[in-house]
């Protein structure tokens, strides 16, 4: 299989990699770069566990080829917190138990971050709409939506 040299910025760090044509961004992140925050829940764009921000947009990284990410800027859950502390969304999730098993959580946080960046004071319906692609089997979404509301107010 043909390989391609690509470079991309992941959580503020410039990364270079040689990737086969059929490798998806999720595999690149998890298996090459050791960033295992984004999860593989379906590999088919149906669950949202693999969501990362690509050039400001939330994407299912299981559906994006690594070569398509050449030159892009990626933010994963590992990039949400910084030396100065956690993202308000992360704080809120801890506060109101927006996470249970935690498998959907990285994807949920990333979708919510991309959404809040665009819509700083959302309505409840807008929050639900923004997170409709992130399946969670544990929480019933109650505390997830609550977390986003709290982060929106505080942030």
């Amino acid at each position, binding site marked *: 299989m043909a390989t391609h040299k690509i470079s991309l910025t992941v959580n503020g760090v410039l990364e270079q990699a040689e990737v086969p044509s*059929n490798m998806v961004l999720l595999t690149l992140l*998890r298996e090459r770069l*050791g*960033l*295992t*925050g*984004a*999860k*593989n*829940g*379906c*590999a*088919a764009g*149906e*669950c949202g*566990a693999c969501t990362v921000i690509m050039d400001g947009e939330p994407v299912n990284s299981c559906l994006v080829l690594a070569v398509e990410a050449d030159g892009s800027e990626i933010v*994963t*859950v*590992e990039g*949400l*917190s910084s030396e100065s502390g*956690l993202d308000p*969304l*992360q704080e809120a*999730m*801890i*506060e109101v*138990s927006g*996470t*249970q*098993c*935690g*498998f*959907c*959580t*990285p994807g949920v*946080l990333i979708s919510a971050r991309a959404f809040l960046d665009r819509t700083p004071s959302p309505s409840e319906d807008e*929050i*639900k*709409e923004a*997170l*409709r*692609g*992130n*399946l*969670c*089997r*544990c*929480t*019933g*979404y*109650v*505390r*997830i*939506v609550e977390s986003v509301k709290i982060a929106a107010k505080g942030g």
Partner: protein
Amino acid sequence: MTEKVGPKSFPSPIGESVPRIDALPKVTGEAKFTDDIQFGADLLYGRIVRSPHPHARIKRLDVSKALALPGVKAVVTGEDCKDRFGLYLKDRYTFCKERVRYVGDPVAGVVATSENLAEEASRLVEVEYEVLEPVLDPVAGVQKDSPLLHPQLKDYTVASFIYPKHGTNISNHFKLRKGDVEKAWSECSVIVEREYRVPHVQHTPIEPHITVAKQDRSGQITLWASSQSPFAQRDLIAASLGMSPRDVRVISPFVGGGFGSKAGVSMEALAVIMAQKVPGHPVKVRLTREEEFYCAFVRQGLVAKIKVGADAHGKLVAMKTEYYWDAGAYTEYGVNITRAAGYSCTGPYDVPNVWTDSYCVYTNHPVGGPMRGFGMPEIHWGIEQTMDQLAEELGMDKLEFRLKNCLREGSITATGSAIHPIGVAECAAKAAEAIDWGEKESSSAPHKLRGKGLAIMWKAPAMPPNAGSSALIRFNEDATVSVGIGGQELGQGAHTIAAQIAAASLGVPMDWIRISGPIDTQYSPYEWQTVASRITWSMGNAIIDAAKDARRQIFDLVAQQWEETPADLDIRDGQVISYKSERSEPLENLVVYGLPKEDDSGWRGGPIIGRGSFMPDYVSALDPETGQGPRAVVHFTAGCQAVDLEVDTETGKIELLRVVSAFDVGKAINPDQVRAQMEGGVVQGASTTLLEQLRLDEGFPINASFTDYRIASTMDMPGENISIIVEVPQDDGPWGARGIGEHSMVPTAPAIANALADAAGLRILDLPLSAERVFNALREKEGMP
């Protein structure tokens, strides 16, 4: 009693909504799940070749082409499997030997250097089948002329409380006979008789099943698995290989949701057989989402025939039930669901005359296994709709009917024992009050109908009578505590609860506690399985026992040092104190290094390690002919859900406006986590009620993806999801606690169905209540074609 453990005056974390201890790693992406562990260049990948037929004989199996592909390291088949395995009935081989019994049954496993290669090689395995007639319905499956799926049933090893019927497809027949049902019908003034159907559904944890297995050169096998049952897996897998559990080690990091699907053994043994062919190499087997839908456990289908009668005063008199469980190709775990359904058949009601037959039936469907509720959502679907119809025919209010007939402390259960204190009536009353029971609400549009309904439930932990837990409490040098447990964190909050219980029962601050993880059968103390909503109760008791043991050691040491008696000592806020002399000593001065003797002649004490265990010793056998016995189970958790909904008559879509849950948890160790379990259960329950069905067309699954098998998203949330905690203490629960994890999805489906009946005058007896089904039923009711 347990309340006396731990000092009372020091602020206890029991009953406090402390934040989850695993939240920080989970929101930062630090939390490691099995697939996140890096294994380096030695890692190989396994892919399973599966049966494309519901029922067939393997005529020829040729793996040579697959083996010849460069990069393929091994191919395994049924020939590599030694013994059958199973939890309650040993009825399955890891890889099929000569017969396949469901679409997806494993026939071979390919090990290769990459996932793609393994996939490619798996397509080169040649299998020739002779297709056999399948069994596709449990009622048909018990007929005499039905094809027989397990002709060797009589040779299978089986637990003492499971009753297979040799020469049939019935792998367990649970019988219950109480009173005289046939005679009792004549005392009834109202009788309702119905047949209900519940389709297969799938747990769909967002993390698919995954196992990495490795055999080292000494023969030890290590598994890294997303698992609810590291110890049961060790035991069952070792037994199937003719090995000792000592030589099988299961390491289980965070689990990305289980709901029962990761209990017992499902796909883990596959990876082990493959790893045995490539010693020194870890082999990763990860189910695809498609495989997850029908190659892991599914929730069994059910055909339930229920007949219930009441007298003119509305008192329940008799109940007759036949359950036909569509249990799938192998029923090693499912046989016990059949049993649990049998002894719980009345629901939380006082019924003097009961006759029940619960049949576990082999079919050529995916393997049925435990799913949140363990048979209870399925049976309550019928029970609670029948009760509603009975109340209707009696002209009684449905709440009043339930309050009149539900179990109260001392009522005699179906198995003939007196029930412990139980808050069924209180839950029903509180849920009804919160939903404004009896008040008719107006609908939001002329084409929408609004209604309310409720359902009550009970559920006991279904497990062997002697399922045990254990715990280890080890003090560190600074008196912080490492708590070893074998109970798994599946998202239900078990480890947070464990830390709360450890802190409170030791008498140290909560932030001194760290739970030792990941769960590792080599280091973690034994735990039967993280199932049955038994962990808070059973593991909690083991932790309390370990804390007592550690305190005893500390008190003996300090009493000797201070020349006092242990009975005058206590631990408060991390200090040993004497109520008599009022002396105190910080724990950190003594829990590892001991204390110096007064006369400088040496030291006394040493590292403190508390060990504790818990096993119920009072669960009795039930009579095989009558299902009667002194005590069938450890306890029942009961509760109620009430629903306020609207149905759109133009689309058939049901919209949940409000759902209220009220459950009697004995004592909420962490009220926020109890509420989180209730909220999540409501949505999973509503999802299985309104949206979900694994469609099996002549045995072939046809909707095995999240696109075709939709589960609830944020768009399907109820308008309000309200939870109420009721606390009627359990005599042997930690601070009175019993479990809640599963219960919250048990009454959801019938509560919705009862509300639909109230809204639209429509009774639907089959799940799911999909928009299409409701729409068609509405049209039929209006007399439209």
